């Protein structure tokens, strides 16, 4: 399938020229086209921030909700209509800061959604403050003494919670990132893809050059089914691994656990079962 099917045509885009978000937009479209997922079969859910504007540059169903709240609606959309492919996509501030609690509990709940996090280690929309993933010492107009909070490590956190699928990509490598995101979307269960990308306006430290120098790909010797090894890789600090860290493919999903789809695969949204008789019986049982 051609990616043009997702294109919005001639629109005004609010991202800075050279922003890593453009690459991620392209990568996600490529992955979806490769998987032959049509716009009406997809829902893109986002929160607030520069990355969270992605649904406006994408021809598909979308729910652009509140700051930090992409995951709860995405979870519910998938639960009431498992036939849809649901992607919750936003930035590091939105997902790991404002939405941190939802991120943690979504991993526990394990809905079959893909969580793509644009991670540029800085706040863009509010113009350059520290994000949860900003590195120690990173100076901003607010963090004038440099960041002293330990950066959040989403990969280690997700593996610690025994997430279903944990990966990291780099926006500068379109081909590899497309493969990772394709696999994440195809994976059954909550799939996290943390995507490194530079912020050309507000992060002069973690540039393309920096990412190239400080990342490397996990090679074939890495077994993504081995949680301990995955965790070890996740906490490496000198050079940051890219690729699929961890997979736990056997975990039942939230939609499976709610039990509504064991016999009847019809999405809850479309069920038209008459309740009258059951309700009358229930009321009578209160005699």
């Amino acid at each position, binding site marked *: 399938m051609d990616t043009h099917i997702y294109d919005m045509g001639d629109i005004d885009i609010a991202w800075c020229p050279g922003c890593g978000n453009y690459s991620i937009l392209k990568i996600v479209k490529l992955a979806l086209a490769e998987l032959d997922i049509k*716009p*009406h*079969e997809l*829902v893109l*859910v986002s929160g*607030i921030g520069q990355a969270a*504007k992605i*649904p*406006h540059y994408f*021809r*598909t*169903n*979308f*729910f*652009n*909700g*509140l700051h930090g*709240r992409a*995951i*709860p*609606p*995405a*979870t*519910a*959309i998938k*639960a*009431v*209509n498992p*036939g*849809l492919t649901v992607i919750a996509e936003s930035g590091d501030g939105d997902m790991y800061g404002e939405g941190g*609690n*939802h991120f*943690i*509990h979504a991993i526990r709940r394990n809905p079959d959604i893909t969580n793509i996090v644009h991670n540029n280690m800085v706040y863009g929309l509010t113009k350059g403050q520290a994000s949860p993933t900003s590195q120690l010492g990173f100076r901003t107009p607010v963090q004038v003494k440099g960041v002293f909070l330990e950066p959040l490590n989403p990969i280690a956190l997700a593996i610690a919670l025994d997430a279903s699928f944990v990966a990291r990509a780099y926006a500068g490598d379109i081909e590899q990132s497309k493969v990772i995101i394709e696999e994440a979307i195809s994976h059954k269960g909550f799939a996290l893809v943390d995507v490194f990308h530079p912020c050309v306006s507000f992060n002069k430290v973690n540039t393309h050059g920096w990412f190239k120098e400080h990342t490397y790909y996990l090679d074939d010797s890495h077994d993504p089914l081995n949680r301990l090894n995955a965790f070890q890789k996740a906490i490496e600090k000198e050079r940051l691994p890219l690729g699929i860290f961890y997979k736990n493919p056997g975990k039942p999903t939230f939609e499976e656990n*709610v*039990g*509504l789809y064991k016999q009847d695969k019809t*999405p*809850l*949204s*479309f*069920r038209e*079962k008459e*309740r*009258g008789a*059951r*309700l*009358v019986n*229930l*009321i*009578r049982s*209160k*005699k």
Partner: protein
Amino acid sequence: MSNKFAPDNSDVSVVLCGQAGQGIQTVERILVRLLKLSGFNVFATKEYMSRVRGGSNSTEIRVSSQRISAFVDRMDILIPFHKGALNHVQKRISPQTLILGDEEIIPDDFQTSGNRYVPVPFAQIASELGGKIFVNIVAAGVVTGMFQVEQSLLGNFIRKFFAEKSGEVVQKNIEAIKRGWEIGRKLLDSQKSRLESWKKQDVSEQILLSGAEAVGLGALAGGCNFLSSYPMSPSTGVMVFLSQQMDEFDLIVEQAEDEISAVNMALGASYAGARAMVTTSGGGFALMTEGVSLAGMTEIPVVIHLAQRPGPATGLPTRTEQADLELALYSGHGEFPRVIFSPGRLEDAFFLTQKAFNLADKYQIPVFILTDQYFMDSYANLPLLDASSAKMEKFIVRTKKGYRRYELTEDGISPRGIPGLGEGLVGVDSDEHDLEAHITEDLDLRKRMVEKRLKKLDSIQKDIVPPELFGSNDYKILVVGWGSTYGVIREALEKLGREDTAFLHFKQVYPLHEKTRDYLEKAERTIIIENNATSQFARLIKLYAGVDIEARILKYNGLAFSVEEVRARLKDIIG
């Protein structure tokens, strides 16, 4: 000694008072069912402390020849379960109160001070049966004996009630209730009670519901198939009730990590085509207010059950109040329409909750059900609810190519599509948006969108539930109330017996019905009764109906009004 149980033997109030963990709730559940099975009208309400063990909690069960739904201070029979009990309900003990209890827990001076006290060796009987845990069931037995419940009903009832317990435990409980029953019968004979001639009504075809169950059943009737919430007293009962219906009714009930997630999940589910609801209380709702605003902007239907308890902050977690009306009314930043219901009767809770789902869908707005702890935790019998009159109205459309979610229409209501149904694409956005839901800063369009959303209020007018008038149409004095105070105010007015005084009950508090002003202006004097400190509803009436209410009867100590209290305070005002 009087030979009557109560001043009016067709209306007896039984109060059980014990520590948390002593099983008085079990006694309440057993008694309301057994008494109703035996043909009595029942009403039960409880006040309790926010603790799992200890303290002092009390339950009042009114047993009556007529349907009742109000708390009374009067205690005709009191069964204390622990030493602190008499102290806890001291103000309510009168010379007529018949007290049944173990000698060890009744202070000596109390026994000799002219109270109607009959010692009953609950603890001894319980220990003969195998332990203190049977005290509550023996007590339940005593009450059933006094009300002449057929002894043959007891065994089967207990077997069903404790169906999940082992055979031995069930057998001991049967023995316990029967031992109690014998004592109750003997008491009855010794008191030569007139209960013998009490005319019973046939309530066997009626049902027994708590406020929480009535809201839950209404949700099912309204087509609710998604509930996401976070447990918080006193709203959790609705969540528990619906959880038990998950399989039977194709329903998702999910305990979210917090209330923020709960409301955002509900909106996601509704966006995708579910009929979604949240149930919460003040502090939890405070967290949900961003979601209320999101529902307003995205025009996603959602039903919010807000069971009020006293605030601010954590307040009194297990007590009651009507102080979150303005919170519900003004929750969520920005301007957008909403509807707020406030059921007074159990039937109201059923039909209004069902209606809430239809209105939320029809107008694509948040609709509130405002209840409180008193309403949630009270039980009563009521005629069978007619589920067939509860119609589920659907407003979702199948989309075509080129569908736009926020199409501008004459009445402001855009046809609502859902993802995956039809060829169109469905977007929603928390930013100001264009017709396709894409972010916009076109300020002319912004103005049109604000007007589109607010225009829905015009159509909502025709669906407003009118206030209900009780008493003569030629009233000179009008008493106004809303929500859960319905039963207490009605009974207080009946007892007051003034023909010039009528009661206007609002089960929809926002938007106000157009007749509100006429009703109020017709009265020479107006009195509002509210379970809060600042008469929020009177303020709302002033704001939206333009009428000042003259007198206020307010209560904000965390307890519900009693019939006696309302009657006395009305009398003070009316004379």
